[in-house]
Structures are given as C-alpha cells and as structure tokens.
C-alpha cells in the first residue's frame, strides 16, 4: 500500500515530553505516511505508552520541545477532543470503565462529534443503532454490550474489542493502538487483528504498540521501531520483530553496546 508519493499523516520531530516533572521521551522522531502500518516495540518503561498519550493530548503529559504534526498541522495546541475529531484515535491499553454511562450513548455522541467534523449529518438514535449493529460484526461483539455501562464489567478481551468498535465507528485517519493485544486469548487476538486489518484504508495509517511478535503475525507491519529510554533506537521491517522475538531485548542492548564501543 505504500508508495513514495503517499502523503505524510503524522510527523514527530525530536519530541521531548515529561510526566510529573520527569522527562520520559528524549527526542522521538517518527514519520507515518498514508497506508502504512508501523509497530513500536520495546520494554516496559521505554516510553511507548507515553508517546501515544502525548499524541492524543493527555493533560498530564507535558511536551518540553519538538513537534507533532498531523497532515502538516501542528497539533500541540489542540485539545484532546479536537485531535480526536480530526482523526487521531488512541486505542487504550487499559480502557476506562465509566459506570452509569451507557456504552451506546457514549458511542453515539463520539461518532457524531467525528461526523460533524467530516461534515456528515449527525445520526439520531435509530440511525446510529443501524450503523453500530453493522460495525459490531467487525469485532464479533454481541449487541448486549451496547446496553451496558462503558467498559464496566467487560473482560479484558471485551474491552479491547470495544476499543476496535470505536475505531470502526470513528473512522480515524491514524490509529495508535496501545497494547491492544495484551490480555487477549488466541481467538480474541485473531478477532481484534482481523478487525484492525479490515479497517485499514489506503488513506489511513496505524501504529501498533506491542510487546509481542504474535500480533504482528496477524497484522504485517511495514515498519518496526524499537524504543528504549524514550527514543526510537532502531527501525527495520517485520524481520526486526522476528529477531527480537528470538533473541529478546538483550539483542538490542548488545547491538547498542557494540555501537557505543565502536564510537
């Protein structure tokens, strides 16, 4: 799907960011173009989730320097809801439970906010129900989940499927899926992965943040990046993920050490 003439969707340059006064990202560079699937791998604490939260505009994370551009527009001044509306989607590692708020209503309000941005008509309750029922099929979810409170009492797998359902409804331009594969059994992983594949469009892109190769068996990435200590330290193709799976992160450490010594 990639071609050299593809438009850039996301460009991150020398991004430094902190949370609670502690700098976590130490200069991240990343370029994502239309049609691309990127995987970001790395140890716990390497800054992968922080990067996703910073792109989505979480108020607890502070950008110290660098830039994030979405289709050429600087998004650092945009509120999280504005980023979402222009097509940036964050699939949460731990989707939040919101007791008392109906999943159906939440999905409808969210979908309509995005549709408004796309100059599409807002959907009333009945129209939305038709749409959501059709999209439920993508993640093989039961309609009963719509009647429950947002993520409340959902199993780990159900929560992740609900995230992909939101992705299906919001039709984002770029989806950053933070450990969408964690806590999933093999069947759920397949359903989630097939959902992500089905939702890929030539003019959209996906960033998968993951620890494991197994998700990448289902979704073939164009680029694999390894993050360590708040930076992307290595970029390669899907074979990099396979090497990593074989040799573990020590393989990266050794490589890095070798480089440092050579310098």
């Amino acid at each position, binding site marked *: 799907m990639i071609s050299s003439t593809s438009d850039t969707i996301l460009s991150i340059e020398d991004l430094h960011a902190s949370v609670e006064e502690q700098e976590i990202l130490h200069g991240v560079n990343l370029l994502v173009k239309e049609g691309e699937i990127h995987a970001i791998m790395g140890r716990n604490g390497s800054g992968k989730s922080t990067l996703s939260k910073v792109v989505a*505009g979480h108020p607890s994370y502070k950008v110290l320097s660098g830039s994030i551009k979405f289709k050429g527009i600087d998004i650092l001044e945009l509120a*999280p*809801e504005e980023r979402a509306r222009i097509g940036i989607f964050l699939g949460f590692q731990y989707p939040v439970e919101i007791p008392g708020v109906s999943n159906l209503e*939440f999905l409808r*309000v*969210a979908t309509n906010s995005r549709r408004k941005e796309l100059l599409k008509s807002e959907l009333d309750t009945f129209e939305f129900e038709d749409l959501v029922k059709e999209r439920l099929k993508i993640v093989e979810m039961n309609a009963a989940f719509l009647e429950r409170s947002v993520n409340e009492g959902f199993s780990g797998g159900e929560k992740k499927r609900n995230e992909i359902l939101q992705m299906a409804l919001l039709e984002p331009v770029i989806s950053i899926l933070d450990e969408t594969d964690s806590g999933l059994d093999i069947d759920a992983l397949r359903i989630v992965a097939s959902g992500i594949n089905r939702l890929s469009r030539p003019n959209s892109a996906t960033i998968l943040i993951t620890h494991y190769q197994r998700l990448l068996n289902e979704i073939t990435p164009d680029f694999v990046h390894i993050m360590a200590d708040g930076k992307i330290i290595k970029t390669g193709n899907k074979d990099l993920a396979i090497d990593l799976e074989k040799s573990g992160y020590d393989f990266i450490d050794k490589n890095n050490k070798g480089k440092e010594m050579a310098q």
Partner: protein
Amino acid sequence: MKSSTICQDWLDSLPTTEGCLKNEQSIGREFLLDQGMPSKKDEAWRLSNFNKLNSFLSLPPIIDNEDIKSQYKSIFPEKDVNRERIIINPKQNPNKNINLPNGIEKLNNKEIEENLGKIVKSTNIKNDISVCLNQASSSNLLALKVKSNFNQSLEIIIPSIEEKSISTRIFLLIEEGAKLDLLQIFLGNNNSAQNHLIEIKLESEVELTHGLISLGEEKESSSICTLAVEQSKNSTYSLHSIHHGWDYSRFEPRIIQSEGEASTIIKGLQVTKSKEQIATHSLIRFEGPNGKLDQLQKAVASEYSHCIFNGSIEVPQKAQKTEAAQLSRNLLLSKRARIDTKPELEIVADDVRCTHGATVSQLQDEELFYLLSRGIDNKHANSLLLKGYYDEVISHFPKSAGKWNFLEKLIQDIKK
C-alpha cells in the same frame, strides 16, 4: 435577630390551635416555647446553617386562601394514566375533593387516632425540632390507606407558595399484602418554605416503592421533611430520593423495622450549587432479627455549597442476623464546596453483618480524558460523567418520573 426571638415571633404568627390536629399543634408549640430552636451544641444540628434555618422561620405561614389564590398557578406535567395524582393545596383540607382509585381510601377518625404520631414517636429522637416545627404549624392531614392486597400507584405533589411557609402532614397505612408505587414531588418557589411530616405504616407482606423528588427550583427556597416509616415482617420498602435546588434543605428519613424480617433499600442523592446547604439525617433501626438494609447516599457539591449526610443504623441485641450495608459516596466539584459525611452504627447484637463506607472524590480525570479522546467536548463529557454518577439513584425511579425534568436540572445547574 436571635433565633429564640425568631422562633417566638414565628409561634406568635401561627393561627390559634384548631381542627383535627389541634392536639398535635399544642404539643409542638409547647415544646418549641419550652426548648426554643437548636444550637451548635445539638449534635444533630451542629453543621446546620442557622442563618438559613432562621430564614426558614421568618416566612409567614399561610393563614387563609386569599394568600394563595393569586400565586397558585403552577403548571405540572401531565399525569400518568395509571397513577392517581393528589396536589396538596395549602390551607385546603386535602381529604376533600380528591379522587381516590379503587383500593385507596381515606382513614376514619378512629384509625387516625390509633395511628397518628406513633411512628414518629417510636423513632425516639431527642429534641425533635423538625417534627415539632411541623406539629406546631400543620393544620390539615392527608390520611389514606391502601387496602389489603391492592396494587396501586399514587403521585403526591406539594408545590410552594411565594413568600410563604407551608406545612403538610401525611399519614399512609398500607395494609397487609398491598403494593404501592408512590411518587412524591416537592417543588420550591421564590422565597418559600416547606415543612413536611410523613408517616407510613407498612403492614406485613407489603411492598412500597417510594420515589421522592424534591426540587427547590427558585431562589431562597427551603424545605424540612421528616419521613417516618414503620415496617412489619416481610415487608419491602425502597426509598429513592433526590434533593436539589434548595437554599436550605433537611431530610430526615427514619425507618423502623418493628419486627425485623423486613427489607429496606434507600438510595439518596443530594446535589448542591451556589451557597446551598442540603442535609440528610437518616435513622434505620432493627427491632427484630433477620432485617436487611441496603443504603446508598450520594452527594455532589459544587461552587460554595455544603452537603451533609449523617447515617445512623441501630442494631440492638434482639436484631440478630441483621444484614446492613451503608455506603456514602460523594463528589466534591469545587475547592470551596464542603461535604460532611458521618456513618453512625450502633451495633449491640453479635451475630450480624454490617458494613459501611464513605468516599469523597472528584470527577475522575482518566474518565474525562477517555471521553475527550473520542472527540466528545468538555461540557458534554462532564454531563455524561455526572449523569453516570447520578444513575445509581436515578435509574430506580419509574420512567414516567422523567417528565419532571430533574435530570436536566441536575446536570445543567452543576458547573464543574
């Protein structure tokens, strides 16, 4: 002005004792003459805003119908087809001109004499100011019974009169095996005061679902309400209440399971804004074994307002195998708002399961971010979260209660 003088003036403004509640009026007035108003030293009133309480007393009671004719023009939403509606028109005998459905009857004098005042007395509250204020001033009584094995729905609306104070007294007897779905609505008005004393007796095998919507919609309205309920064996009582919009409100639900072996569910919500003070002082006592209680009290305080909850549960020796759970959950939305919550469990019986807990929190940032990250704007996201917070109480109201638009008010009035 001193509160003792205000109380004296208030007593002087009352009409002479008369009518079916003459005896009660004398009891209340004598007590107030003797004891006066409470002070900060009275534990049950310690946190009460006395300026607001004094304002409550400074409004004149309604003396005759001329007072209300010009102002009594509230328009209410249409009544439900299956729910009989009673509007309590102050100073008019509520027992006149009401249509009672099959299965609900007025109590006769003998029944009134046998029952009135007994339940509230059995709650044994010392210096029972809320009750005495009502006794002293109520001149009419709505006394009804739901006949044995009937299943009925009833709506009782009590509007307020601008610049006036009203007192209402209600007694309901629900006979063995009957079911009642009761919805009560208290409505405030500009500079108005309401005082209610409600007694409800549930005979055995009775099921009462009681929704109470108490909305002080306008400026400077206040409300004091005592609700005394006696539950016989195998009865089920569920109370769902909302208090909002009153400058000063004090709600005292008191439930006595007279033989134990009954089930009580209480879900209360109080939501304050501006400089309002809304308080709930509940008492649940088990006078026999195997009683059950599930109590949830929620509060949301914004701006400079103050919410108070005091929840007493008494489990004496004879109330073995009682299972009681009380939870107070509070949302503090402003640095200047205040929430006081106090569980008070007095457990003597040794084979019981009683739990209690209290939390005070703010709207969760992670919940808010989750909604924002889906493109929902801040205002709408906050509304959704508030609605979610209210849901545990509001979802228990009958669907038709929605026509009173309380949910919209509860969301719109609260600025985060």
